[in-house]
């Protein structure tokens, strides 16, 4: 049969199980005396083994089989895990992961598993002890009837050499025989059927009036029978047992499974189609508005409603809980902490919060950067923490929280915090900030850190060194229409907050006019709109600003920024954007309404202001640029 169709399912499910293994191993490592995780580990590895064997992935099967053996021994013995064993199990899990990934792409051969396999073997041998006992006794409550030696015909059976699990097959043959009469004198004794050494040859006596041919047929019906010989009758005994009548089949209520797995590309295609539908819908609405025909209006409204429902449905189908990405982090944090001799308690909160799959897939690397920084540069060594009066074990918390139309994901540590003075000094030397500035605000700090090149400079990383990869993280998050905020306090710790739209592809946006162009501003970060010319403006740190709800909101005149000639109307709207603690008021010529827009990525030409995150096609077929809230605030 064609197995390739199952490869994706195999991959997805194996990944899930291996991710669960990581969690279970981490739990076990925390409380080695408590063997509770071993059952789950055993089942996960066992499942992977079964799937891999079916797919014909020999290496995966091999590692899984040996890992399973070791786990089985641990499970039976209810043993506490030693550090050595746990490290071996971690290694085995990692080897399995690599093997799974390589096997699926047909590169299984590149993998050398000899070492881990040998280590698993020797660990299992050590645990099993010199006299390795087979677990035969557990199922020893045999159904064997009391023996009446010498009675009945001698039946000798040989199973096919290639038959798997011969003991099970032999037992089935005995059961078939029991349908004809009384079985006794089974040789070897039934307990031997449970041993791996059972070679498939056995005999028994059957006290039955049945003809030899019927006995042979019955035994053969057990399957995998190579040879049966039915000997002469020694003494006729009990009457044959009547086989139990088959139960009457009862009407079944069909029930289908409620989940299917869908290739992400299919959802992307659907999303694209819906996107086009939304664009056409916009056009239909405009035409309907121009026509003023109630019948056309009716249809337009219905189409609008239906496509909105359809769109909501597709977006829902794309939603994925963040644990799918978060689950690999506990292990990474642990490994890194071990490597750096730090003690770190890692907590994850809000695992079930959902994000569009496409966004979630992009989050892994930025989060990894931030977590790595937190362990490497944020958390101090146990000795240093003690000196500062902190507990030796540092804490890192990864949290996801839903906020209106966005999701906030934060990475917080209780480490040393970022050394602002050093960063300021360096930023001034490089001319990045006002040479007379006395301190860096959190926002300025992030802007400095996020400058490519700055962050990776050795002088910074070796001192307080927050920088590695932050520019990468900021760029990635911005590209997703999100933002990053930083809060840091010397000696207390640092936290990064990433805010991301829940979904990417279709967003509700304000359409603003500037000059003759239209611009779309996603509503995700729009807090409110107020009118310019009504609110008094002030100057704060040299920037024009308004005061709104007792807070200063610096203004950005879009007309000026975009270099549009001519004057803005005297009274015009200010769109107030809010990203975490930061706010900014965007002054535009006019508001043209709200609508759903389909976000198309674009490569801005050289020299384009870094304030656009993409483009969209308006209902009339004319494109409009999408303003990037992150670049404006």
């Amino acid at each position, binding site marked *: *049969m064609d197995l390739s169709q*199952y490869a994706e*399912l*195999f991959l997805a*499910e194996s990944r899930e199980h291996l991710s669960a293994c990581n969690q279970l191993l981490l739990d076990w490592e925390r409380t080695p005396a408590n063997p509770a995780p071993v059952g*789950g580990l*055993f*089942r996960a590895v*066992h*499942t992977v*083994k*079964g*799937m891999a*064997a*079916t*797919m*014909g992935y020999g290496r995966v099967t091999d590692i899984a*089989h040996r890992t399973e053996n070791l786990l089985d021994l641990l499970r039976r013995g209810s043993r506490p895990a030693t550090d050595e064993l746990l490290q071996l199990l971690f290694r085995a899990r990692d080897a399995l992961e690599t093997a799974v990934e390589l096997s699926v792409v047909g590169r299984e051969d590149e993998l050398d598993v000899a070492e881990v396999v040998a280590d698993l073997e020797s660990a299992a041998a050590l645990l099993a002890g010199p006299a390795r006992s*087979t*677990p*035969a006794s*557990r*199922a020893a*409550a*045999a*159904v064997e009837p009391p023996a009446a030696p010498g009675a009945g015909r001698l039946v000798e059976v040989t199973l096919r050499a290639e038959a*798997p*699990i*011969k*003991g*099970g097959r032999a*037992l*089935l043959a005995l*059961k078939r025989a029991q349908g004809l009469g009384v079985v006794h004198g089974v040789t070897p004794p*039934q307990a031997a*059927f*449970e*041993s*791996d050494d*059972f070679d498939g040859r056995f005999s028994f006596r059957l006290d039955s009036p049945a003809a030899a041919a019927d006995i042979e047929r019955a035994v053969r*019906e*057990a*399957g995998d029978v190579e040879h049966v010989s039915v000997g002469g009758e020694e003494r006729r005994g009990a009457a044959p047992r009547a086989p*139990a009548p*088959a*139960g009457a*089949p*009862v*009407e*079944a*209520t*069909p*029930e289908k*499974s409620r*989940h299917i*797995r869908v290739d992400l590309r299919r959802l992307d295609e659907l999303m694209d189609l819906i996107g086009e539908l939304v664009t056409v819908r916009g056009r239909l609405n405009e035409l309907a508005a121009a026509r003023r025909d109630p019948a056309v209006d009716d249809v337009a409204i219905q189409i609008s409603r239906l496509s909105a429902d359809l769109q909501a449905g597709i977006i829902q189908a794309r939603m994925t809980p963040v644990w799918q990405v978060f689950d690999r982090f506990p292990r990474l944090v642990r490994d890194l902490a071990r490597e750096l001799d730090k003690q770190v308690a890692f907590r994850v909160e809000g695992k079930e919060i959902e994000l569009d799959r496409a966004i979630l897939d992009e989050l892994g690397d930025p989060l990894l950067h931030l977590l790595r920084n937190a362990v490497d540069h944020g958390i101090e060594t146990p000795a240093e923490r003690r000196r500062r009066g902190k507990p030796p074990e540092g804490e890192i918390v990864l949290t996801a929280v839903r906020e209106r139309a966005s999701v906030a994901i934060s990475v917080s540590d209780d480490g040393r915090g970022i050394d602002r003075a050093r960063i300021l000094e360096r930023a001034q030397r490089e001319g990045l900030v006002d040479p007379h500035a006395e301190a860096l605000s959190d926002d300025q700090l992030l802007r400095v850190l996020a400058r490519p090149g700055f962050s990776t400079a050795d002088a910074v990383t070796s001192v307080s060194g927050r920088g590695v990869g932050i520019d990468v993280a900021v760029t990635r998050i911005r590209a997703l229409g999100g933002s990053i905020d930083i809060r840091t306090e010397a000696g207390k710790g640092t936290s990064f907050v990433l805010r991301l739209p829940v979904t990417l592809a279709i967003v509700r946006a304000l359409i603003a006019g500037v000059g003759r162009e239209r611009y779309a501003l996603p509503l995700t970060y729009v807090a409110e709109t107020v009118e310019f010319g009504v609110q008094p403006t002030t100057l704060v740190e040299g920037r024009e600003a308004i005061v709104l709800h007792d807070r200063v909101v610096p203004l950005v005149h879009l007309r000026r920024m975009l270099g549009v000639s001519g004057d803005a109307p005297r009274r015009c709207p200010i769109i107030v954007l809010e990203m975490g603690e930061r706010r900014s008021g965007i002054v535009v010529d006019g508001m043209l309404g709200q609508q759903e827009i389909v976000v198309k990525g674009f490569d801005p030409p050289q020299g384009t202001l870094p304030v656009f995150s993409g483009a969209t096609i308006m209902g009339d077929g004319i494109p409009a640029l999408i303003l990037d809230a992150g670049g404006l605030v």
Partner: protein
Amino acid sequence: MSHTVLVCDDAIFMRTMISDILAQAGFEIVGEAETGSQAVEKYRQLKPDLVTMDIVMPDMGGIDAVREIVKQDPDAKILMCSAMGQQALVVEAIQAGAKDFVVKPFQPSRVLEAVQRVLG
């Protein structure tokens, strides 16, 4: 009327594959279970002609599920799905009342042979 089947395995992969093999052979998959206790519950609801039962499952294992199902219905036709090396467990399952077994990796022909034997 085609025979009805309840497929019990904690791996979607395995359930999909067994379901595909049996559905292609004309069986009707009427339900799936991921744990032993689900298997027992669904057997009660669906009364399928055939059950395929994984041995190692969370919550309640396949062998205990066989015991429970056979207690309810001594004529239940249960086919164990085992892995290589589970000799003792297969023997235990048969003693508990399973009617036959297949061994992973599954070959469709072997599965169908076993099913035919079970359904007689």
